[in-house]
């Protein structure tokens, strides 16, 4: 189980490659990348990601431990950035490895649902005409009820 919270960029492809490399124990690897998306179709200068140092690592580790408890996983990786990120940049990723794909997919979705709404990060969109905090989406909160 690997959890990293960092300001520095990371190489999503390299992380996926390293995570999947030489696994004879797991037939299935699922990865997710969250990318800074320009929802307005141009005009977004950056996404500013604030976090709660200390609680962030603690919350993510707790969510990852719960995933390991629920599914038979060979490995879990979570990386989440904070600070100022330009459009197109990878904000965060999760990866899961399991014997079968159902567990790998379910665990990755579980991790994402909980990271979205239970890990202390807040996004602010910075545009030329102003800045605005991203509002939590009702469907993100609702997604937790399925687990």
């Amino acid at each position, binding site marked *: 189980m690997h959890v990293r919270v960092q300001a520095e960029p990371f190489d999503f492809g390299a992380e996926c490659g390293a995570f999947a490399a030489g696994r004879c124990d797991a037939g299935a690897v699922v990865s997710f990348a969250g990318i800074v998306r320009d929802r307005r179709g141009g005009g977004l200068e950056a996404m500013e990601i604030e976090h709660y140092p200390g*609680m962030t690592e603690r919350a993510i580790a707790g969510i990852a431990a719960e995933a390991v408890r629920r599914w038979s996983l060979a490995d879990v990786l979570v990386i989440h950035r904070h600070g100022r990120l330009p459009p197109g940049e990878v904000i965060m990723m999760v990866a899961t490895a399991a014997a079968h794909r159902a567990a790998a997919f379910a665990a990755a979705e579980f991790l994402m649902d909980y990271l979205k*709404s239970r890990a202390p990060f807040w996004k602010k969109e910075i545009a030329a005409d102003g800045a605005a905090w991203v509002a939590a989406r009702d469907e993100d909160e609702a997604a937790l009820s399925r687990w």
Partner: protein
Amino acid sequence: MIEVLYFAWVRERVGRPRERVETSAATVAGLVEELRARGEGHAAAFADTAALRVALDQDLAEFDAPLAGVREVAFFPPMTGG
């Protein structure tokens, strides 16, 4: 003394990221009442606690949770990670 932390727009409205607070409040809700009285910024930040989340010593909690023994209280909007 309790360390009170603010994040995102709560931090912006209060005007600072953290402050030390002397309190005898029994619960988070009691602390919120005291904080509201600290000024306009605080009042704006705590105008609607339904829009807020609270963590006690870095664990999510409810507003009716007791404060006894708590060293760090954080207030923030619903999280938008991932």
